């Protein structure tokens, strides 16, 4: 069973439907105990960084931290990825989980913001999550802040400046784009996560 963490930041329904479409059982939950029982965990999210406050106030953050430490496969999507960094300029007063170093920053003024639409992945190195996909593949992004490049980055996107589009470390995976809204390429990524 895949647990989709519902912390009130939207798009849980579309993630659930995409998983159902590829034949994976999943349930939406806001219960820390359900995360312990889950084989895999997806942390979706879209919207303002402030929505991640719910992690701290509900104990979900601590539960997720435990699962990440134990090696349960976890996939963060969009805000669910940014929250794994130290902080975001979108809500500087809040802290992220700081699994990855650095802070998420606004786009340079030379480009429109938010970054909305289908953009290309520049895949570097080997990635279990992106297995079968080639550099240049288009996926759907919608975000106003971007995560820095880190040594765990496996795909970047160059919009304004290069930023992390996907990263992985052991069984922890995260993507800035929305695999549940990225057509066949996105469904392939979700399928990869389910078999990682």
């Amino acid at each position: 069973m895949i647990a989709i963490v519902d912390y009130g930041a939207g798009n849980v329904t579309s993630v659930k439907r995409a998983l159902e479409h590829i034949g994976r059982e999943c349930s939406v939950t806001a219960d820390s105990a359900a995360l312990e029982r889950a084989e895999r965990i997806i942390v979706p999210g879209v919207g303002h960084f402030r929505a991640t406050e719910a992690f701290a106030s509900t104990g979900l953050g601590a539960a997720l931290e435990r699962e990440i430490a134990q090696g349960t496969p976890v996939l963060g999507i969009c805000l669910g990825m940014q929250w794994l960094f130290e902080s975001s300029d979108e809500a500087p007063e809040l802290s992220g989980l700081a699994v990855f170093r650095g802070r998420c920053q606004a786009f340079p003024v030379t480009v429109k913001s938010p970054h909305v639409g289908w953009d290309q992945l520049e895949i570097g190195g080997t990635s279990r999550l992106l297995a079968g996909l080639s550099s240049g593949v288009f996926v759907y992004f919608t975000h106003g802040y971007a995560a820095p490049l880190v040594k765990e980055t496996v795909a970047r996107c160059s919009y304004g400046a290069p930023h992390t589009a996907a990263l992985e470390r052991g069984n922890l995976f995260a993507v800035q784009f929305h695999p549940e809204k990225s057509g066949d390429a996105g469904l392939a990524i979700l399928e990869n996560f389910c078999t990682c």
Partner: protein
Amino acid sequence: MLSKRIIACLDVDAGRVVKGVSFRDLRDAGDPVELAQRHSAAGADEIVLLDISATRRGRRTALEVVRRAGRELFIPFTVGGGIASLAQAAAVIEAGADKVAVNSAALENPHLIEAIATRFGSQAVVVAVDAKRRRDGSSWDVWSASGSRPTGRDVLAWVREAKERGAGEILLTSMDRDGTKAGFDCELTARVSVAVRIPVIASGGAGGAEHFACVFREGRADAALAASVFHYGLGSIRRLKHLLLEQGIPVRLPC
């Protein structure tokens, strides 16, 4: 590179696509979900479902369509038409839409933009603007109520305000070009695109591939929307995208 988006718009009345369609192998040419899937397979980057139902019952049926579309569509889709409150926006998003388009209600009550953006994020709020050129040609006015009522507001001022209030994208329709197949209003689109730093979707006037190329280049549009032209004039979105790619315009080709 960020691609230019081609958005297919379906006008839905009481759960059925109005405006004729000519796909021969569709089981049901009036079913919005089947058509939307068809567009998605042909390479549409996004789907807009515009509910033009005049009755409450028709709108309830439309919500059912949104629910079904959410189960079958794995590209972004926006729902617009008559959304007048946060509760209505929430119902549509909870049914499966990724974004809502607001128009007349946002003009009457601009706080609606803030309310939806605060609850669901700016990326979920598309502000639709119906623009008509003033008689003297100097600027454009915003019209409301499906383009039947002039508001006296200046388009550029309104899109700036909408952006400040939390709009994530602007869906800009040229009333002068809508239905003419004479091409998008590139001048209007460019003015709006420069006025706000958020993405602008051009609409109204699509007739041929050259119109899309023009609105992406001269109009600086981030996306272009059309409805019937994908059924008649242009063959399919796939062909349109190949033509645009030949002209050096970045588009995403379907798998």
